[in-house]
């Protein structure tokens, strides 16, 4: 394991995977998507998960976020062990403790921007915290677009609504699956800026899967995955340093 020691960081862990494995199929068709992965995500930290396609980065995120089941190991969100939860409890956990930002199909076309933002609270039957909601909306700069339907918003604006939705319910952790994948670079930069701000200013925990070194550079820390294992970790990344590491794995992968 090349995982860097975590002991020097003292803040609490928002989510942690221990010896997490995910295996598809049996016998000849057996595919190991995740191979005994152990990783922790600290509170108020912005983590990017990187890796080539098929490396298991999305699977890792899905398992940790309670979207997918795993074969062995353990996942904890806060104090909750996910492996023991039934679908109903998992759903409630996602609703109350996790925020999501997907690459596309993020919003319900029938609801306006504000309704989309408060949807998780609506589902939970909770009243949104007005002050917090205003803060989030102000941060993503959507105050004048709240009555618009998704079809009336640009892709970047739609994704900003999605970011606001993920933050609005004050989840313990926000997961993003290639949140800038469908956006042009300017809109992408905006969305990533909001995510970083939410960590810096609001103390939010964010975990994001991406294959874009520029996006990863917004994070505090980058975790590199290859063949279902964590192969490296980087703190305070820049686009160049991320790209360098990526190249190194590629080279290693070819030589070994």
């Amino acid at each position, binding site marked *: 394991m090349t995982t860097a020691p975590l002991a020097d960081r003292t803040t609490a862990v928002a989510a942690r995977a221990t010896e997490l494995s995910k295996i598809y199929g049996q016998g000849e068709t057996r595919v190991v998507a995740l191979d005994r992965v152990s990783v922790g995500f600290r509170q108020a930290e912005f983590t990017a998960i990187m890796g080539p396609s098929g490396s298991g980065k999305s699977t890792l995120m899905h398992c940790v976020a309670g979207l997918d089941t795993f074969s062995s190991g353990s996942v904890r969100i806060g104090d909750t062990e996910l492996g023991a939860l039934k679908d109903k409890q998992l759903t409630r956990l996602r609703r109350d403790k996790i925020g999501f930002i997907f690459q596309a199909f993020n919003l319900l076309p029938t*609801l306006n921007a504000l309704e989309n933002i408060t949807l998780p609270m609506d589902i939970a039957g909770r009243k949104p915290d007005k002050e917090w909601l205003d803060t989030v909306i102000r941060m993503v700069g959507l105050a004048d677009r709240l009555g618009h339907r998704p079809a009336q918003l640009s892709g970047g604006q739609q994704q900003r609504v999605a970011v606001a*939705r993920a933050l609005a319910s004050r989840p313990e952790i926000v997961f993003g699956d*290639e949140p800038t994948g469908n956006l042009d670079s300017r809109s992408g930069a905006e969305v990533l800026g909001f995510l970083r701000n939410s960590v810096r200013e609001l103390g939010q925990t964010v975990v994001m899967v991406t294959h874009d070194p520029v996006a990863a550079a917004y994070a505090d820390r980058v975790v590199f995955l290859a063949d279902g294992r964590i192969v490296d970790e980087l703190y305070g990344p820049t686009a160049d340093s991320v790209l360098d590491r990526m190249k190194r794995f590629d080279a290693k992968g070819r030589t070994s």
Partner: protein
Amino acid sequence: MFRTALRNVFAHKARLLMTVLAVMLGVAFVSGTLVFADTLSNAFRNQSAKSYDDVAVAVTSYADPDNPEEAPGLSAGDLGRIAAVDGVAGVYGRVEGFAGVADPDGKLIGVGWSNKGSNFAPGEDGKDPAYTFTEGSGPVRDGQIALDEESAAKGEYEVGDRVRVATNGPVKEYTLSGVFTTEDGAVNAGGSLVLFDTAVAQKQYLRQGYFEDATVVAAPGADDAKILAAVEPLLPDSAEAQTGTALADEQADQIEQGMGNLKQVLLGFAGIALFVGVFLISNTFTMLVAQRTKEVALMRAVGASRRQITRSVLAEAAVVGLVASAVGFALGVGLAVGLRSGMAAFDMKMPDGPLVLSATPVVAAFAVGVLITVFAAWLPGRRAAKIPPVAAMNSLHAVATTKSLVLRNSVGAAVTALGAAGIVAGASSGGDEGRMYIGAGAFLALVGVIILIPLLSRPVIALVRPLLVGPFGVAGKLAGQNAVRNPRRTGATASALAIGLTLVTGLSVLGVTVGTAIDKMTTDNIKADYMVSMANGGDLDRSALTALEKAEGVSAVSPQQDVYLQTGDDYVSASGVTPGDIERVLNVDVVSGDAGTLAEGQIAVAEKTARSKGWKPGDRIPFTFADEKKATLTVGAVYKDSEFLSPVLVDTAVVDGHEAKPYIRQIFVKTDGGQTAANEQVLVDALGDNPAITVMDRQDIRDEFGGAINTLLNVMYGLLAMALIIAVLGVVNTLAMSVFERQQEIGMLRAIGLDRRRVKRMVRLEAVVISVFGAVVGIGLGTFLGWAVGETVAEEIPGYALVLPWDRIGIFVVLAGLVGVLAALWPARNAARLNMLTAIKAE
């Protein structure tokens, strides 16, 4: 291109399932009807051929038995002359009339109208070829009867038992001399047949020594036509002869005609079911085309012409139609077989016969199935052809769903307005012509509303949205919005339900309104406690009247006796009644004059008749009686028209001497102490416990007049159920489509915390909203139509007032909601089970 079409059918098996089911049900209805009618006509035809098998020539007398100046039928002498004709082996004279048999409990065996009595006519060998005795032998003297096998079994009678039999006179007891089987039509229709000794039957039904009919049996090898030619000159003027074959054919034609009417009614309902199916099919193909946009664009890009694209869609529809028709036809044949055994199980006697599969139902099934499917797919096919080749290049080709509905709405509004105008015009003009306007208007209004339904869906569903959000929270809110996301599809789905409910509601409003009016009329006009009549609807014997007049505790009795009265050249419909009592048993609302004058031999006249004839109290009117005798009668009173009173009332005593035989339709009875079980028993006993006479209390009378409407309504509901089933399939189809199209959305909702239960609830509520919306539109239109048709008959029904059957309407709405829940079962389960990860994965 055909291969592409075929491949597409297989690729979308599951999504075409509902279409196949809808076409299949419609085709099954059509082919089932045709096969059933064919099989039944064939069986009836065989039966009538069989019952005339032995008959070479049949002779029928049309003489008037009430005319004392001519022979009332065929005499023994006539029969003797026929018997002497060359080639005739035997002549059997027949008389027949009503005869009811009591079971040991005193109840009538068999249905009233087909209970028959006839004579046993033994030939020289002592046998009557029309009857085959399984036990005992034919009745040969007074006091003996024979009974058909089935009736004997129902009454558990054995040869030698005493059996009570009523003709229209008092009930008599006979000894059962034998039990027989026969091909007689009345028996085959589930009635009973009593055979009397010839002399007894003649006295009872005609006159001693005379017959109504005669059947001539030919010697082996003799030619029927030759016998007919020889017999004809021997007959009295009032009689006619036909060969047995001709008679059988004639009867078969009559059956065919009756069957044809039944067939038309059933096919009409099948047509409605198929019409509803069109919406479902069209929806399915619209979705398939939308999903295939890229594929179609690619084909266009590589050189397929628009026509080829349309044809490929139509070919796909044809394949679907063909498969569905084949299955539907098989189902239809099964339906026909099942229907026959079902009828047998309900004691409706149908003649046996082989299943008849002629070419017509086969051709009809496939033509209907394929044409309907292709027709419904035609518009989606054209839409597919309009997809531009460039759509293949765009990674994100938005499916055009919210295309402008302006043109559609304007056309719809115009057509609806035209239809509504037609309906209102028809309602105000009334009569047959009015009903024709309403029919045309109803069709236009229905089409118009179907065109308008997408427009209507938004505001109507917006109205109920608060009801959804309140109790169901976010699932209800999303469901309400999803329901109007694709107004065309929602519209088509709701239309299917709306059509069925328009008809169901229209019929209900009309039926309940008319039923209530009739009921009110009955209760308003009948003051009597009991009504006495014959079970077969025939006339009561005078003895019944006398017996009731003498019965204990009877305070008023009056017959309604049909009387022949002629004034000038006009025949007036008149009733002989008992003066003094008639006002106590029926409501006689005197406008001028005094009903008491009836007792003085004066007549009472209904208002309309009095007005048209110019009669008023005190006028003296010359009349001619049935026996041509003349008299001048004074108008004593004028009363309001009533369904229960003839236009002219007269004391029975005035007319009795002039009528050969009184024709008493009903007798109304009022008893001391009103309606009690004891009083009813007194009447039954007074009538000699006669199985052929029914004594009805007030409730029975109401059921008798109003009950038929309820039965009719239930039959209609049953027939319309097929259209509703297809509409339900349409709802299932639409939901399955919606769930499929919104996979990603549902996946996202699951990810951010909507649990499975609420995903299900969301889909279910969408279904309920669409179904109830369709139901409400249908109920609205149906009520309007019911009102309009009701207006045209209001004239003919006194006391007519529109009654909205809120209970039934409520039930329809609840049923529509249940339909939604039911239809959502499978799509909701699918939605809840959706794999979140595949669903949210970007395209």
